[in-house]
């Protein structure tokens, strides 16, 4: 079916062409176009209600698009239901079948795809080995801890050797310490099997930690996509800057743009900031908290400020400093001089690490 003259795409690729999804009056996706390459782990990141889970469910075939085309491995699957798509999914709630043993859970997909019983059991056991659950096959899901249930869910999805593995906030039911451990495991399995994976989360740190590429979504469309460092160092909007890591967003005047460097005036201070823009534009300045250095007020240069809050966190100090351009959040990792509340200070900026985004 469909247009055979497409550029051939490899197994494991995903492509959305102008996909629209409406739920009655509500628009969940406005004309989304995206491409996911085979073998990469892409995270869909965004605040709740941004359309990231809808996108995932569209790839799975659990929702049908209102318009547009979806291709998996170069084949048009727009009208195929989840049953007939070669993708599998790890659910936020794990969705383990409570009345089946762990082994029955893991071999369920194989059995549903008419794999013989013995072979299915064998593959399922291999899958359990892979996630470190050998010997747990006879247990019921309710007899496992949260982290173990999680791994069963992963095993159940990967034993089918899907073209695309979908993960819907897989860590949200785990406690903070376990999360780091399990996300490393998921990443390792994904890389070992060379699976294409699409990962949904609203936790930017998690996204940064596991992804080859992040697609940030906002208001039913893509806000920005790129590698974690692209997004962190060169955000294209105030939203991205604020969403990926902490940022101080400051009003400033752009005086001149030349050779990818913008000359910026911030409360009388002149700064040279890297930019991709070729011409002058209205912008706000993005300052990461660790890119500001506090010096005593006796210094002649730097933005004047007054410490209104300070907190000791063991490996770092966190400050809020009141300045002419508003309050600024500052992190000091050097653990050098400590500035108490009420102290006047001067602020120096690491200019090459600042970013400008259109206002």
């Amino acid at each position, binding site marked *: 079916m469909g247009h055979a003259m497409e550029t051939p795409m490899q197994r494991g690729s995903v492509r959305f062409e102008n996909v629209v999804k409406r739920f009655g009056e509500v628009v969940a996706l406005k004309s989304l176009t995206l491409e996911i390459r085979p073998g990469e782990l892409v995270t869909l990141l965004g605040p709740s209600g941004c359309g990231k889970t809808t996108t995932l469910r569209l790839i799975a075939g659990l929702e049908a698009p209102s318009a547009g085309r979806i291709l998996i491995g170069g084949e048009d699957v727009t009208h195929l*239901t989840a049953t007939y798509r070669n993708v*599998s*999914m790890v659910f936020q*709630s794990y969705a383990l079948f409570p009345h089946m043993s762990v082994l029955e859970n893991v071999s*369920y*997909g194989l059995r549903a795809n008419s794999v013989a019983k013995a072979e299915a059991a064998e593959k399922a056991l291999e899958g359990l080995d892979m996630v470190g659950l050998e010997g747990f096959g006879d247990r019921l899901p309710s007899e496992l801890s949260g982290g173990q249930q999680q791994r069963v869910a992963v095993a159940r*999805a990967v034993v089918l050797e899907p073209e695309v593995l979908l993960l819907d906030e897989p860590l949200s039911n*785990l406690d903070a310490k376990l999360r780091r451990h399990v996300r490393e495991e998921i990443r390792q399995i994904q890389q070992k099997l060379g699976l294409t994976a699409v990962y949904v989360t609203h936790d930017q740190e998690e996204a940064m930690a596991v992804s080859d590429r992040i697609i940030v979504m906002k208001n039913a469309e893509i806000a920005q996509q790129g590698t974690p460092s692209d997004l962190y160092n060169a955000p294209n909007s105030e939203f991205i800057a604020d969403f990926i890591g902490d940022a101080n967003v400051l009003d400033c005047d752009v005086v001149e743009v030349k050779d990818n460097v913008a000359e910026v005036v911030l409360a009388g201070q002149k700064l040279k900031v890297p930019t991709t823009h070729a011409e002058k534009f209205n912008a706000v300045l993005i300052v990461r908290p660790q890119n500001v250095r506090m010096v005593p007020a006796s210094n002649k240069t730097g933005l004047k400020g007054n410490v209104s809050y300070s907190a000791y966190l063991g490996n770092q100090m966190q400050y809020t400093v009141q300045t002419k351009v508003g309050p600024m959040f500052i992190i000091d990792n050097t653990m050098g001089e400590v500035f108490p509340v009420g102290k006047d200070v001067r602020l120096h900026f690491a200019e090459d690490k600042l970013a400008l985004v259109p206002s």
Partner: protein
Amino acid sequence: MKKTATIWLFIGLAGALLLPWYAQDSGFWTFEWLFGGFGSAEAGSALTLALFHGKWWLFPAVLFIGLSGLGLAAIKKHQMLARTLIIVPALGLFTIVVQGFVIGRIGPNYFVEFLSANGAADGQIGMGAGALVVLASLLFMLTSGISGSGKGRGDAFIVGLIGLIVALVAVFVFFPVSQILVEAFKTSEGELSLGGFFARIFSPRIWSLACVVSDSRCGPAWNSLFLAIMTGAGTTLLGLAFALIATRTNFRAKKLLRVLTIIPIITPPFVIGLALILLFGRAGTVTELLNEFFDVPKTRWLYGFWGIYLAQLLSFTPIAFLVLIGVVEGVSPSMEEASQTLNADRWQTFRWVSFPLMRPGLANAFLLGFIESIADFGNPLVLGGNYNVLSTDIYFAIVGAVADSGKAATLAIVLLSLTLGAFVVQRFWVGKKSYATVTGKGDSGQHASLNPVLRTVCYATAIPWAAFTAVVYSMIIFGSFVKLWGYDHSFTLEHYLRAFSISFTNGIRWTGVAWDSYFTTLTISTIAAPLTALVGLATAYLLVRQKFWGKGAFEFSTMLSFAIPGTVIGISYILAFNVPPIELTGTGIILIIVFVFRNMPVGVRGGIAAMSQLDKSLDEASITLGANSFTTVRRVIVPLMGPAILAALTYSFVRAITSVSAVIFLVSAKHNMATSFIVGRVENGEFGIAIAYSAVLIVTMLTAILLLQLVIGRRRLRREDRVQMHGKIKINPAGT
């Protein structure tokens, strides 16, 4: 798509070419039609009848099946085939239905001259196995076409299921009810008239208020309304008292309280009426005692409003209790605790927090009591006296000296309007305002206990009432062992013997008068129960788990039959299924069908409740793992729905045994049901045998419930036994 359609094509071909198109006098399963040959005029298939017996209007049945087959064989393009499989079977269904209505039993109903001149003058009888198979085949080819066209998410199984249930509800709920409307529009000459319709609907015979100003009787509509409002209010208050005691006090015999309120569900409808007669009738125990010691004159006060009212309060208070216990429990303890930490005392907490939160639930309970009362048939039949209500008037219009189906239809429409009105208010006004929020989050914390005054009030109402209920029920047992109540109180087994004696001379002979109806009842209930559960739970599955166009209307229509009083269903079935194309009156099938569609809403509700507790991601997990909907249902949903299936089975079985209102119109000499047999005995004044039979029915139902628990409960139990060793089973897979 293609596979499913091809299977149905062959089934359809068999139906059109081999099976007898018309219903067989000797019944299908005797297979006598096989020997008559499908070439005969009686047992012919659509093809042979059309070719050799001049019934050319059956050609489309063969034609459209054939065309679908051609399409399946010739069309290679997927979309084109899907479209063909939508259009061709749809046309086939349409023409078959049209011919069924146009050509009736004694000749054409429409286009009379033209059709009579062309071979249809003799008319035709009701459809049979061949027609059924052909229609099913066309329907499922149509649904597989729809699923293949890629509109919507459903696979062939889901779309087929939707199509099947829509078709069943259309044929067995909407079609009969619409026949009442048609009947009510008809004048005595058989013509349709709008003016006559309104004149009848608003006739003073139905709406008279004469009783307010004079001694003459009021119209049945006002009587029914007044009774329903009183019953709704009464059952709600009593139910609330019970619910408060069960949840907010340390009352010791709470369990007993629950049992006492569950019993009425397994009580045949007029048993309470009979027991009341034994207590308060002219020869009743209480009447006699009062007469003897206080010289209170013996009167017939029981036969009229107060008798019905008392019986309905006894019958429907448990329903209010069941609703309100959920409501009272649904008020989150943390809200009450919050109120108390804000220094409100117990009375203030109840008045300002708990009660306002319960208010929508109370309205709900009231409306349910209202609907139950207005639809009630058994109690007014036994105790009505001169107090006419709509439901019994409908019955008397049909079985009276002159069967007046027009009058019955008119009364049925009035009754239907009242219940539907209440139903709509309940669904769209009260239902939306409900605060009862079950979040699924465990709410620890304690319900505030009642303040002393309120507690005393609750005890003072509920405990005497519970005691009264106990007395009423013990009357059933006593009454069945007594020769002639009120006159001769000597012990006897005579009633049981007359009803259930067995003679062993010349082998076993079931000589008791009740055996016939007893076996029929058991057989029909046993067949109806699984079908009801199946249809109800399948509908629940579609409503909870599937998205499709027109789902809202679909849900409303399946719940509709809940709001249709049994008497209305009964009369509508007589009107609809007494003539071709579907002739079912006098058969056992019509009884099964009426049970399935009357009790289906309960299966739907129960299924929805159970299915909503199953995390939706379980189905989605199964589907993304490559299982289709059918496998998902079979391997994931059904195993997790054990309790709901059990409840649906039990309920539909019990309801089939105790139901009387719809059944009484549809029984026949060959297929008599227990309840209508008992009504007959009551009408003859043979209370002893009626009560003995009722007691046997209650025991039968209890046994059946226990058996079902054993058979179906076992699989679940084993699972739990196994789990017990390690920990508790969790249905919600998210839990850690």
